[in-house]
């Protein structure tokens, strides 16, 4: 069967790609000492700085840009299910903050992201009233799992583990509904990398606690849970997991844990770049969204570095691979 085509949307995206920051432009900005010059480059790339008085408030600019990106997705692909692949992570982010705030009692309002599929106030009242009807199936399961695991009161990382797992499971479920192989493979790759990342983190920082991994494991990837479980009792150099994962990925997780997040982002980006060869199908749209999200992440790295007087070299090392 022929794939659905999006001629209008893809052409629009092709022109929008011209405004994406290249690696060279990002590196030049990292070297630039005058913050006003950086801002003027970003204004040329359609970032809006009118709303802030001082550069420390750059998050407001990035939030506006992210909002614009998500509105573009909703406009281009009115099928909201598709947009939810990218939006649902904000629901889980907000839910995590609200649940953790209940334990720690810290104010979390400034960190909420109002760009999800469920209004923040509805998430707050759902938790308060224990009425989870506004939640998706996976969110409901996640909340139930958290309350069934009392250890979360002492270890908020459990909340992250469970909700991250449910977030990716929801993404996979939505991606299957889109019937796009490209999107399904993208989500599966993210799941595999996240499972590997979680395994190494628990192995190193949580005394190989299989119970936490059991909660954090994301279903739907290509590596089965028992491979990870068996590997917990083995040496990392000769684990069963090593034989199931590409050497390049395993070695990176084993020898360079501090840069593994960056490696994962770049790994997904190299997959996204395959979309450059597609002319009319959904791939270029998905890749643009990922490319723009990555660009926003890079600008956050840039401004955080500049505000904290971090050297250009270190900022450059932290940059993720650009889509263009």
């Amino acid at each position: 069967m022929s794939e659905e085509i999006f001629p209008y949307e893809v052409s629009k995206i092709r022109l929008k790609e011209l405004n994406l920051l290249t690696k060279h432009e990002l590196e030049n900005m990292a070297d630039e000492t005058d913050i006003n010059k950086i801002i003027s480059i970003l204004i040329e790339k359609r970032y809006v700085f009118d709303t802030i008085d001082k550069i420390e408030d750059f998050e407001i600019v990035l939030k506006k840009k992210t909002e614009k990106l998500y509105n573009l997705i909703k406009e281009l692909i009115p099928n909201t299910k598709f947009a939810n692949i990218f939006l649902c992570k904000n629901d889980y982010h907000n839910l995590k903050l609200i649940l953790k705030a209940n334990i720690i009692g810290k104010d979390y309002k400034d960190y909420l992201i109002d760009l999800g599929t469920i209004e923040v106030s509805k998430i707050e009242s759902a938790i308060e009233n224990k009425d989870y009807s506004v939640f998706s199936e996976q969110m409901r399961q996640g909340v139930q799992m958290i309350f069934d695991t009392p250890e979360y009161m002492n270890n908020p990382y459990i909340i992250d583990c469970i909700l991250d797992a449910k977030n990716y499971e929801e993404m996979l479920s939505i991606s299957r509904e889109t019937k796009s192989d490209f999107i399904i493979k993208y989500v599966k790759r993210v799941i595999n990398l996240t499972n590997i990342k979680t395994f190494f983190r628990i192995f190193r920082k949580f005394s190989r606690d299989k119970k936490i991994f059991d909660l954090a494991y994301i279903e739907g990837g290509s590596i089965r849970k028992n491979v990870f479980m068996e590997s917990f009792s083995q040496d990392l150099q000769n684990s069963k997991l090593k034989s199931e994962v590409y050497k390049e990925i395993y070695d990176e997780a084993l020898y360079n844990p501090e840069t593994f997040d960056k490696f994962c982002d770049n790994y997904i980006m190299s997959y996204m770049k395959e979309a450059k060869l597609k002319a009319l199908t959904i791939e270029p749209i998905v890749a643009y969204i990922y490319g723009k999200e990555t660009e926003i992440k890079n600008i956050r790295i840039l401004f955080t570095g500049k505000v904290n007087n971090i050297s250009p070299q270190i900022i450059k090392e932290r940059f993720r691979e650009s889509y263009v």
Partner: protein
Amino acid sequence: MEFLEGLANGQFLAILGAAIAVIFAGMGSAKGTSIAGQAAAGAISEDSSKFGKLLVLQLLPGTQGLYGFIIAFLILTKAGILGTAVELTTGQGFQLLASGLAVGVVGYISGIYQGKAAAAGVGIVSKKSEELGKAITLAAIVETYALLGLLISFLAYNGVNVG
């Protein structure tokens, strides 16, 4: 019985051939220009200065409909529907019907595919306006097959002797 006899009427069959040529080739062009037009509209929504260049790409899949129309016109003329009236046998009617098939079927399929190639070309021109020539060339290759369909239809039409 009268209905079946009507179906075997030479002129009816010739009209059917003309209709097939014009309907299918026209459908191919309509679909093709629509795909290329949607792609052009997406690019123009971001940069309206590209309208002139993109219009050329949108027009490319429009030729199939024209080829279908030419063959249909010729068939109708030979069948006596247009111009001087002639007597057509059932066999001659079938021959004219068959001559319309090539341009109709090939026009339908090539129109859609040329529309996709033109829409992909819009992606090239969106980023590099100076590459319009290459985008047109790539889409124009598909035209070859529409022309072959037209040629065969014309040769077949030309070989039918009536009157």
